[in-house]
């Protein structure tokens, strides 16, 4: 009986470890697409230029086939009364803040997904439905998503939104950096429509140089901080402002890539399944020894 048990155990463990070896190779393939290309694109947002016309809000809705009021209605500035966030119905919104340099001209800030270099949403998604594409866009695969909303818990900028009112096929909604437009050489809809030069589209590395230049040549106009250069490990969208970013409702997620800690813990515990298998073997050993001792008694 004892021998039998031991042989059984060894046999099963052997089967288990081959099965797991098979799984783990599979697994390394099965990670979401996460490309950090040298030439990834980005947008530099100069909040000191923005006039708050909200044309970008309208253009975004049109480009993404979301219901929208006529373009003229967007000149209504009462929308600025309360702080708005990107939502399932509006992937980008503009907020208004007071401007310490000139009280007559308010500061307007367009917000949307930051398209992080190390996106938490991509790391977190249970089925790998989010991906970071070569051109910098962080996009979402509607066919995979199970609607768990972990991406929303993970995002340091609280960007993804969810269609809570839909009983069937609710979607995660967020700015996709106009992936379908840029693919065919068009500009992102907001960049294209902006009547002033608030939004500059280009390779992220170039944008950082431009931003540095701007700060250098207009030290009175800007504070010395490019938001998004290092925030959360760097983002594709970059911001310039004339006041502290906390004052214009930007969170401070720190400079480290958000998924760092959780991924290293995850991979530590599951490193090629060695720790779990090892643990299994120890438990098996204890089981066998205590059984033997019992039988000897």
């Amino acid at each position, binding site marked *: 009986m004892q021998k039998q048990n031991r042989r059984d155990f060894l046999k099963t463990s052997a089967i288990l470890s081959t099965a797991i070896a098979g799984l783990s190779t599979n697994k390394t393939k099965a990670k979401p697409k996460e490309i950090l290309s040298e030439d990834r694109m980005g947008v530099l947002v100069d909040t000191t230029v923005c006039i708050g016309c909200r044309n970008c809000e309208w253009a975004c809705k049109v480009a993404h086939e979301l219901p929208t009021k006529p373009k003229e209605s967007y000149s209504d500035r009462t929308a600025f009364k309360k702080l708005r966030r990107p*939502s399932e119905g509006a992937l980008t919104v503009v907020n208004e803040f007071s401007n310490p340099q000139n009280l007559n001209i308010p500061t307007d800030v367009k917000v949307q997904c930051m398209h992080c270099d190390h996106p938490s949403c991509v790391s977190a998604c249970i089925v790998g439905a989010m991906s970071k594409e070569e051109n910098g866009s962080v996009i979402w695969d509607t066919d*995979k998503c199970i609607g768990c909303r972990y991406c929303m*818990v993970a995002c340091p900028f609280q960007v993804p939104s969810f269609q809570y009112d839909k009983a069937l096929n609710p979607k995660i909604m967020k700015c996709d950096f106009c992936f379908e437009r840029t693919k065919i050489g068009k500009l992102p809809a907001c960049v294209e429509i902006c009547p002033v030069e608030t939004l500059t589209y280009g390779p992220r590395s170039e944008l950082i140089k431009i931003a540095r230049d701007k700060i250098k040549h207009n030290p009175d106009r800007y504070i010395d901080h490019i938001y998004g250069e290092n925030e959360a490990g760097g983002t594709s969208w970059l911001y310039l402002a004339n006041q502290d970013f906390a004052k214009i409702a930007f969170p401070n997620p720190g400079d480290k890539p958000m998924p760092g*800690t959780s991924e290293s*813990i995850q991979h530590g515990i599951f490193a090629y399944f060695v720790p779990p298998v090892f643990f*299994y073997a120890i438990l098996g050993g204890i089981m066998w020894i205590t059984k033997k001792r019992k039988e000897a008694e």
Partner: protein
Amino acid sequence: MEDLMKPLQVEKKYFTPGVIVLSLIALNGLVFLAGRFLFGIGAVTNLNNQYPWGIWIGVDVAAGVALAAGGFTTAALGHVMHREKYHAIIRPALLTAMLGYTFVALGVSVDIGRWYYIWHPLVFWNGNSALFEVGICVIMYVTTLYIEFLPIVTERFIGNVRLKSFFSFLNKPLNKFLRILDKGLAKVMFFFIILGVVLSTLHQSSLGTLMIIAGPKMHPLWQTPILPLLFLLSAISVGFPMVIFESLIASKSLGLKPEMEVLSSLGRIVPPILGIYLAFKIGDIVIRGTFVYLLQFNVQSVMFIIEVLFGAIIPLRMFLSETVLKSKILLFIASSLVIFGVLLNRINNFIIAYHPPYSYGAYYPSVGELSVTIGFIALLILAYRLIVINFPVISLPDKQYMIQTKFTIRGSQK
């Protein structure tokens, strides 16, 4: 002596006034659940883009998994370490774990927006995601628990398959099949028992990794890189109190005499585990220096203090006292406190500590969310009762040896 106790079906009527009340509570939950499936999550919950997770995740899933830890801790004690003394409590603990995890799975499927895609994690993998790890382990563990429960089913039906009239020709082959199944299961069961313990340790800790990615959105009193360890330790420390708690309740409601001797010795195992958990919990806030947040007076600091004081320190002291271990009522209170502590810890981690950057106000569960959660708990208790009445789960004095007076029972056996 121990052989005189044997898992048997509890001979009791199913319906009692309590059962009817529970059924009504369950029904109420099901009504709201129907609302969720017909009109979407937004129709019955207070969730929004700032607070994507509420009590369905914090309580039904996170606390549910932790409180079902009795299954793997008793399996480790009874089967892996072969402490025969505890065999009487393994089956009830297994049943609770099996039902608990079934309801965790149900809880997940009502919370996710696309419940019909619940199988996706089996096909689309993301090894970076803590949630993926939790999902896969839970799916595998639920299966393992059902396999571990199978012998109880075969034991119930072997020699007892009595299909009526037309199907009666099936009786013999079915019986034979059950015997073969039973034999086969007995041979490989050790594999599943160890697997169950390994899977449990994995996902109990991964559940803690979940909130780490939320980074500064989580209050520093709870946000720590050792969250997975804290989750694992707290799950292990709540395992035995949970077994004690449910044994005492079940014996009360089924009119049996609780096996205080076994329960007291279980209680003796609690302090070292709970002590280690407490040490890590306190050590963590000291080393990271986050204890300074306790000096501020706000919801978070108060909740943290309640959690640690009532959920760990007081019950730890209680479990160290012989008087408590010997008294039914005190033991019950001490166990309830540990359970309360872990429940509160999961609520704290997933709800109280979570502070999104643009919240327009705190999240409170809606009537619908509460109804569904409470309804699920009622359903779980109803299922438990149904199963112990129909399957040999709870250890009772064996009828054949009913001569001694040591195990008196009140009106359970006619």
